[in-house]
């Protein structure tokens, strides 16, 4: 291992820029003549818009234009789309309701945009927005997914009867019924996977500019996948052809999924820039972010696990209602189906699984992928079921897991996933050793002496990452393939630029991608720069989400590097006057085997561009290669997290006192970055388990619409986390990488709730497990014990 190659904990190259405030985010960019957009948003969750009077507002100082949905429609600007087709079990396609960028006659969630004011300054735009008179006829709202399909519930979209988007299933319900009829033991859970607000540090922003000379548009935006944004805005919204639309996602301050999607504001800024003839900038304020960034999770689930007398799982049945909010966001349909139900086998051999998912509309902000996307929801179901089953059977939860672990690979689950490699017992054993599970009983007694309840919870999770083989996702309804592209440009003096279709918004690609190049070409990482996020520089790419940049994006780079090496060898052979077959490339040197004749990488690079004596027709000048890589399978990172908590019985306050994470991410490029990703993921998962919850009232108002009411995790909520890894190489990509970005958020909620329920002795603890929730559970458990 070289000092900066694969496996080295290299400090992040990009941090100097970020930490010293020198990053360039969308809002940092200003264009000459720039105007500002302020959106007029519905205060109501559900209402008919009878009229919009912009006369008084238009007369306000600085106003350049006030645009509404009617004008948008008149200009034939198309609707936003959901790009993944899901069919219901009866074969009918999902009910995708129109999603105009500005509401057309009806608003469907509080915060839905009805008009936009474009003015010289932001303050002027905001002032004028208050003078826009919107005549709303308020309609009853529905916010609870469990009530959306009820008779008499308010109907949100024509063409979606009972607010139902699809009724999807996987598995054979009759066969599952048979398994449960003959089951010796059945464990049951009723779960709410609480709705979350992503809250990236940088709020969303868009800056659009129209060049009327070239008739082209440029959009700077906070996107995790600028090429997909260009594709959708071009091909579906119809804003401009692709070659006339440049999308640049510069530094982006966190995404967590919420910046994958194509949002109304980007479309409106582009449209307005062309209409007004001025660059138009919009940056969400935090309140706007709460009301318009796609939320995450929001499932209501009933699940059962069947077991035999030996504690072997014989079947699983799951029924989930997934809330997709007021409109179907870009990838929303896939999250509660193919990113959820396909993971319900967990780390276990389960011979029969049936899962039915109803997706519904409600008068809430659209819901889409959020760190983990479907997999945290699946893990929560599986890991709660197994914990409850273990307690019911009187078995040690670790032992029940061990008995049911998948042990031979590849393993074909009954829910479509093909697990390629893993050693689940190895990671659990290592985690148990590091955590000193054996000493838990003693620690519990010590806590009891000071009146505290202590609990320990496991989460042996699995996820599907490295999204994804194009043929597979295509057959499942995806509108795009999920390969990745790379281009490696070697400059004449031997420095290297790597162009990637991935996008970094916190992941550290500028470091890890450079480490791969350093390893392969034997040059220091300082001589490598990573270019991403600009559709004019990178030809096409699919962006970053689903822990795909390592497994898929770096595999594409590796493929391009193979080509660079092959060509460089040819050039070296020519320069060294040797046969190409005799050239050995090692540690950045091309050597003629068995001689001391060699050339450094930089010398060969220079030779490639000087090209003075290349035999005409045999060697092309230059050293630049591109590659597209399409993975052969998903990757399956997995691991074991152990959470230990202490509860103050008087107040119900839960304190996490210890956490151990042992993950199998396959080959690790930079252990320090991986550890950071695990820390961050756990923090988000703990946020979901203990603190975070988006709450709507019955009228559809987001009650938890600010940081005064929406509790984010703080450093003080955590002990020092013990992070370690086990490694089984991923056979599905050339680098053996599985991915690590989401693991913590996937594993953590179940670990926390399993620990709390262990401490309390009562299974009904909802998320977020606030002090009040835990206090009530402690009281309930005491009452049950007293009655027994």
């Amino acid at each position, binding site marked *: 291992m070289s000092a900066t190659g694969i496996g080295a904990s290299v400090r992040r190259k990009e941090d100097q820029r970020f930490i010293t405030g020198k990053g360039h985010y969308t809002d940092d960019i200003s264009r000459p003549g720039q105007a500002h957009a302020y959106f007029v948003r519905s205060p109501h969750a559900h209402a008919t818009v009878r009229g919009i009077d912009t006369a008084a507002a238009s007369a306000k100082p600085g106003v350049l234009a006030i645009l509404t949905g009617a004008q948008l429609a008149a200009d034939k600007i198309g609707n936003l789309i959901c790009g993944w087709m899901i069919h219901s079990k009866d074969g009918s396609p999902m009910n995708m309701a129109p999603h105009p960028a500005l509401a057309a006659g009806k608003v469907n969630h509080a915060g839905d945009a009805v008009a936009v004011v474009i003015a010289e300054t932001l303050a002027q735009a905001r002032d004028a927005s*208050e003078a826009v008179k919107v005549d709303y006829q308020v309609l009853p709202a529905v916010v609870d997914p469990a009530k959306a399909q009820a008779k008499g519930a308010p109907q949100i979209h024509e063409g979606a009867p009972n607010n139902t988007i699809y009724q999807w299933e996987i598995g054979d319900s009759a066969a599952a019924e048979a398994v449960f009829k003959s089951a010796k033991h059945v464990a049951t859970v009723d779960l709410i996977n609480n709705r979350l607000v992503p809250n990236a540090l940088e709020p969303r922003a868009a800056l659009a500019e129209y060049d009327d000379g070239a008739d082209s548009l440029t959009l700077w935006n906070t996107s995790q996948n600028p090429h997909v944004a260009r594709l959708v805005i071009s091909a579906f919204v119809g804003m401009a052809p692709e070659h006339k639309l440049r999308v640049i996602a510069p530094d982006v301050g966190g995404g967590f999924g919420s910046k994958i999607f194509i949002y109304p504001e980007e479309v409106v800024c582009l449209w307005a820039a062309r209409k007004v003839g001025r660059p138009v900038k919009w940056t969400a304020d935090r*309140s706007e972010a709460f009301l318009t960034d796609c939320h995450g999770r929001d499932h209501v689930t009933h699940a059962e696990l069947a077991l035999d007398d030996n504690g072997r799982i014989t079947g699983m049945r799951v029924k989930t209602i997934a809330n997709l909010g007021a409109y179907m966001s870009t990838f929303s349909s896939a999250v509660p189906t193919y990113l959820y139900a396909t993971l319900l086998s967990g780390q276990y051999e389960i011979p029969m699984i049936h899962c039915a998912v109803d997706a519904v509309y409600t008068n809430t902000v659209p819901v889409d992928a959020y760190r983990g996307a479907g997999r945290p929801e699946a893990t929560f179901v599986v890991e709660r079921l197994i914990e409850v089953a273990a307690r019911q059977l009187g078995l040690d939860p670790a032992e029940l897991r061990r008995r049911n672990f998948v042990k031979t690979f590849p393993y074909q689950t009954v829910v479509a996933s093909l697990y390629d490699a893993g050693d689940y017992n190895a990671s659990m054993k290592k985690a148990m050793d590091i955590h000193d599970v054996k000493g838990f009983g003693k620690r519990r007694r010590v806590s009891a002496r000071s009146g505290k309840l202590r609990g320990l919870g496991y989460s042996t999770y699995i996820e599907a990452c490295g999204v994804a083989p194009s043929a597979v996702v295509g057959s499942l309804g995806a509108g795009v393939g999920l390969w990745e592209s790379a281009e490696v440009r070697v400059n004449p003096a031997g420095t290297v630029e790597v162009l990637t279709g991935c996008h970094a918004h916190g992941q550290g690609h500028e470091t890890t991608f450079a480490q791969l190049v350093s390893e392969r070409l034997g040059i220091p990482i300082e001589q490598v720069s990573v270019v991403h996020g600009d559709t004019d520089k990178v030809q096409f790419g699919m962006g970053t989400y689903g822990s795909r940049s390592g497994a898929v994006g770096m595999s594409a780079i590796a493929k391009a590097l193979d080509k660079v090496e092959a060509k460089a060898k040819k050039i070296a052979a020519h320069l060294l006057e040797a046969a190409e077959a005799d050239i050995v490339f090692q540690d950045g040197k091309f050597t003629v085997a068995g001689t001391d004749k060699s050339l450094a990488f930089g010398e060969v690079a220079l030779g490639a561009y000087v090209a003075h004596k290349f035999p005409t027709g045999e060697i092309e000048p230059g050293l630049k290669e591109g590659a597209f890589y399409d993975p052969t399978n998903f990757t399956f990172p997995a691991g074991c997290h152990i959470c230990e908590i202490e509860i103050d019985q*008087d*107040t*119900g*306050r839960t304190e996490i006192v210890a956490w151990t994470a042992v993950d199998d991410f396959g080959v690790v490029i930079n252990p320090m970055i991986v550890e950071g990703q695990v820390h961050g993921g756990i923090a988000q998962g703990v946020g979901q388990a203990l*603190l975070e*919850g988006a*709450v709507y009232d019955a009228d559809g108002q987001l*009650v*938890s619409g600010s*940081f*005064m*009411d*929406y*509790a*984010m995790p703080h450093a003080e909520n955590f002990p020092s986390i013990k992070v370690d890894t086990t490694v089984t190489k991923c056979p599905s990509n050339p680098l053996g990488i599985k991915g690590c970005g989401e693991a913590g958020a996937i594993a953590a909620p179940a670990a926390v709730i399993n620990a709390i329920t262990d401490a309390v002795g009562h299974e009904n603890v909802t998320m977020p497990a*606030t*002090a*009040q929730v835990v*206090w*009530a559970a402690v009281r309930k458990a005491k009452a049950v014990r007293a009655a027994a």
Partner: protein
Amino acid sequence: MYNFTFHQPTTLRQAVNLLAKNEDAKLLAGGHSLLPVMKQRLASPAAIIDISRIPELSGVELKGRSVVVGAGTTHSEVANSQVLKDSIPGLAEVPASIGDPHVRHRGTIGGSIANNDPNADYPAAALGLGATIITNKRRIAADDFFQGMFTTALEPNEIITKMQFPIAKKCAYQKFKHPASGFALVGVFVSKRGSDVRVAVTGAGANGVFRVPEFEAALKKRFNAKSLDGLSVSADGMNNDIHAGPEYRAHLVGVLARRAVADANARKD
């Protein structure tokens, strides 16, 4: 934020004159309550009178059997005052739980008391110590000063200048933090000064800070956490929001009162 005219007086007299002259004016001390609502355009005062540059409003001073704290004294100054640490340590400990270092270096004790946020900490301390609120016009007993959430006895054109805190023999504050805002979900301040025993509760009541006479009576007999055994406050009139219901808040009042009494007794004189 809407436009406003900005005044920055350097004497109390100037401030009072400005307040009388400007209708719809607001006093700005630390600004941590006022500025957020102005930014959200929920408040739009025509004039702002910044009283943070008035020297006579700041400082902590021992005066006989009480400590006088200037209204403009920041949370951090209260926390670090040697006079308070020595004479009323329970009061000096209150600001440690307020906000973060930025807030504690800007926010003021007078601002907090004048605002009377139902979840703020200082109203519990003022009521729990039986403080006297001194304004440019008069002296008001804490018992008369707090009149419901965001409501006080202050009249228009009246500015709090100081608070006089009697030195209690024993006192302590216990706070259960709101998980998001860090304000008091429930906070209880207890004190004992001769036969005067006080238990003041913030965060819990739907009508702002209040005293608990049953607890006080029991503690007067014996100032010990055990004296509160079997006693509880009713859930009627308690706040109910997405973070805590009335029953839980009422329960926390009892828990925190016991802990505060234990803390007060554990303190070495």
